[in-house]
Every structure is written in structure tokens, then in C-alpha cells.
């Protein structure tokens, strides 16, 4: 029993160190490597941006759109008792931009992109492709991790903005269609209580979530062991760990913004 606990602590510690090392290596190949050796190929960065961003747009749109619908219905149910259904608009907008937009988008991307990264790199690892890159003197971090990291870093905030908008539209559909609020009034109320800091705190979160998804996915992929089963395990792990870290980071960041008064 004690040995099991000990082993899992040692493994956890190793993973944390491994992820930090991977993060430092990634930063090296983004900021220093291009001047000393070679930069990541622009083509593969754009390719990843299309996969991460464009191909995820639809699913992000739907998830946040329906969340906006649900949020509007639920809050209308509560606000109706106080005769304040108009404020559904601002409630939906603020809670989406500050919280639900960034977090839901990140969870969707962790499930869709993080798992794909872990599975792809994991398969490359178990079929000797990573070793082949190393023998060809091609650094796997530069070649595989950096394009994915940068693609997520730039696309995640874009997707978050899209998610915010989709959620607000969802709220609007309920507000105008079911609660009978005038469309212009709904839009006006939405922006009346939505401040700039609501949006940028959400975007700050999305940058952090992007780094979490990229690093966990790549780390799990690069450390895959033992064939098809290993790839499956790495994929599952990447999603589970990303989910936990996203929620944890969200909690910490929200606390920081809350107590610093922004």
C-alpha cells in the first residue's frame, strides 16, 4: 500500500518536472532556437492552426450557443420572480465572457485537439518515428511541439471570442424569442453591463488554458510506452489531466482577478 502511494508520488513528481522541462524547451525553440539553429516550419504552424482553430470553430460554436440558451432559460426562471427578466441579457454576457466562454471552449479543445495531439505524437513514439527524427538530427520539440503549442496559443483566444459571441447569440434567441424582450433593448443591456475587463480576464484565461492543453497533450504523447494500449492510455490521460488543470487554473485565475479587484 505504502509502496503504491510512494510510487504514484514519485511518478507525479516526475511528470511535473517533465512538463516543466518540456515547457522550457518549447520556449527555447520559440525564442532562442530560431536565432541559434532553425525555427519551426511556418507551414506546419499554419497547418496546425487550421486544425486547431478552423476545424474546431463549429463544435465550439454549438457548445457555447446551447450553453447560452440554457443559461438564458435558467436565469430567466430565477429573475422572473423578481420581475427582472431584462437582466438575463447582462447575466448571460458577463458570465459567458468571464467564465463559461473560456472554460467551455478550453474543455472542448482539450477533448478535441489535446487528445488528437497525444494520440498522434504517441503513435509516432511507439512506431519509432520520434526516434527517426532524432537520428535525422531533427529536434522533436521544435518539429512537433512548437507548431502545436503556437497554434493553440493563437487560436484558443480566437475560439474563446467566437464562443462568447455564440453564447450571447444563444441568450438573445431565448430573450427575444421566448421572453419577449425587444431585440435592440436586449443588445443594449448586454453591452451596458459588460466591461472591457470582463473580456480580457476571459482572454487571459484562454491563453493559460491553451498552454495547458498543448503541453499536456505533447508531454503525454512523447512519453507514450507500449504500443496501441499505450497510445490509448496517453490519450485518456491527456484529456483527464487537461480537464483537471483547466478547472484548477480557472479557479486560481478567478481568485486572482477577484481579489485584485478586476
Amino acid at each position, binding site marked *: 500500500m505504502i509502496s503504491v502511494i510512494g510510487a504514484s508520488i514519485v511518478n507525479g513528481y516526475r511528470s511535473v518536472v517533465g512538463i516543466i522541462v518540456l515547457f522550457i524547451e518549447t520556449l527555447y525553440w520559440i525564442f532562442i532556437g530560431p536565432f541559434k*539553429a*532553425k525555427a519551426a516550419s511556418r507551414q506546419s504552424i499554419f497547418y496546425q492552426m487550421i486544425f486547431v482553430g478552423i476545424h474546431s470553430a463549429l463544435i465550439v460554436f454549438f457548445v457555447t450557443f446551447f450553453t447560452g440558451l440554457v443559461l438564458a432559460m435558467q436565469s430567466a426562471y430565477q429573475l422572473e420572480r423578481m420581475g427582472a427578466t431584462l437582466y438575463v441579457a447582462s447575466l448571460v454576457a458577463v458570465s459567458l465572457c468571464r467564465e463559461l466562454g473560456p472554460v467551455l471552449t478550453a474543455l472542448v479543445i482539450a477533448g478535441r485537439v489535446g487528445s488528437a495531439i497525444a494520440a*498522434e505524437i504517441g503513435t*509516432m*513514439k*511507439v*512506431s*519509432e*518515428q520520434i*526516434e*527517426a*527524427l*532524432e*537520428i*535525422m*538530427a*531533427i*529536434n522533436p520539440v521544435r518539429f512537433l511541439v512548437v507548431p502545436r503549442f503556437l497554434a493553440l496559443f493563437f487560436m484558443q483566444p480566437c475560439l474563446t471570442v467566437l464562443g462568447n459571441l455564440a453564447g450571447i447569440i444563444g441568450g438573445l434567441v431565448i430573450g427575444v424569442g421566448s421572453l419577449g424582450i425587444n431585440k435592440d433593448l436586449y443588445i443594449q443591456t448586454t453591452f451596458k453591463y459588460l466591461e472591457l475587463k470582463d473580456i480580457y480576464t476571459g482572454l487571459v484565461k484562454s491563453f493559460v488554458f491553451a498552454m495547458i492543453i498543448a503541453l499536456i497533450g505533447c508531454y503525454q504523447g512523447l512519453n507514450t*510506452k*507500449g504500443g496501441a494500449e499505450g497510445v490509448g492510455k496517453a490519450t485518456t490521460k491527456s484529456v483527464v489531466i487537461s480537464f483537471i488543470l483547466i478547472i484548477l487554473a480557472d479557479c486560481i485565475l478567478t481568485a486572482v482577478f477577484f481579489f485584485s479587484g478586476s
Partner: protein
Amino acid sequence: MSETGNNKKEVIVSVNNLTKSFGSNIVTNNVSLDIYRGETFVIMGCSGSGKSTLMRLMTGGIKPDSGNIFVKGKDIARLYGNELDEIRRSYGMLFQYSALLDSLTVQDNVSLPLREHTKLAPDIIRIIVKMKLSLVGLRGYEDYYPSQISGGMKKRVGLARAIALDPGIVFYDEPTSGLDPVVGGVIDKLIKDLSEKLLITSIVVTHDMASVFNIADRVAMVHKGEVIAIGTPDEIKNSANPYVQQFIKGSPDGPIDLFKEDIGSEEILDF
């Protein structure tokens, strides 16, 4: 061994007192050997004998516990990062399962080392790729993906990629395993051709006996992490060593008793 003949040749890879263990399992035990420029050197042995580990030590994929591996005068056991990469640029390697990047076409796979390590114009790279592919008899397959071609063709593409940068040393990890005898023969012939035409030093890990006697200039037999015999194919064939004889004949009875041995080191190395 033709001592006088070999002594005149230039040593290109020199392994001295190399030892490597995984946990309590010693997989390379005090191995010393020299490989000469332009020869085809075969390392043979049972699964788990430590022959793959020996090759991975030579490619710098894993670091030894003690000993040196001098490649062109530099000890790659002590090299990291850019210095190791510099040596590796003169390496080519054909992997057991080809290890082609399956997100890239044949063209892109073969041109990858050229795009990464040279500043050649795309047109010239395309010409070089055509040349390399015709060397392995695969011209016209540039736009196929690895998943669309057969195992033997993948091996040949892997070979074209391995020689893309005109390396001085090419490593072959089980080049003929999993192939039918005809394709295996084709691969053997390619290995021979390349070493004769391009004067490439070939280091081959295999347990395919037919292939060993087809291509080898010299053979080393590895058993339990130790080199137990080394010499020309004829010398190996006529060796009095019972381990060697059992291995060549593929007989289940003899000093190599799999039922008494621990699980092999390759089990651990199989990442």
C-alpha cells in the same frame, strides 16, 4: 580474420569497453569492436541478446554506463545537443518498421532531411529525391502516403530517406524482418549496392541468416550482451563456438537455452 587486410583500413566506429544495464539487467557487457570505412558489418544474435541496444548506443539514442564510442574521432557517448546532431547528420538509419512519418507523402519523407539540414532550392531537392527514389526502384511513387504502399516499399522509402543526405554510415535495424524472401533479397541487394557504389559503411542488426551471409563483410555474434565471436562470414560459418553453430543452424537444442534465460533486454527497450 584477415588481420593484415583490415589493419590497413581506416577505423570509422570504434567501440571500447562499452557497458550498459537497465536496472539489474546487463544488456551490453564490456563490448569492444572496430568498424572500418566502407565495410558491411553485421551484428547478429537472438532476440534479447542486446544487439539492438548495441546499435542504439552507436546511434547515440541511449547513453552507456561506461566505455566510449568513437565515431570519426569523437566520443558520442559524451556528446549532447548540437554536437551530437552534427555527428548524426552523417548517419542514416533504416528502422525495423521503416518509421516513415505517416502524415507526409513519400516525397516529403525523403526530402525531410534535405529541407531540414540544407539550404537547397525546392527544385533541386525534388531532383535529389527523384534520384534517391530511383536508386531504390520507387520512382513515380512521390505522391503516395506511407499507408498506401506495401511494407517492402516502405522499407525502400525508408532506405531512400536514410541515404538522402549522402551519409557516411548507415544503420539497418532488422532490414529484412517481416518481408517475403524476394523483397528481403531486394533489400539485401540494395544494401550491398549502396555500400559498393556509394562507399557507405553499413552496420546491420539482424537475425536473418540468409541475409547475413549475403551481405556481410564481417560478422559479430552477440550473446547476453557480449560479443562471443567476430570475423568474416566464412570464419563464422566454420567457428567452433557451440553458441554460434546453434544460432546458424537455428536448432532448439544447444547451449542457448531460452527456457532458462531471463526475459530479453529488448523487452525493456521496446519503446
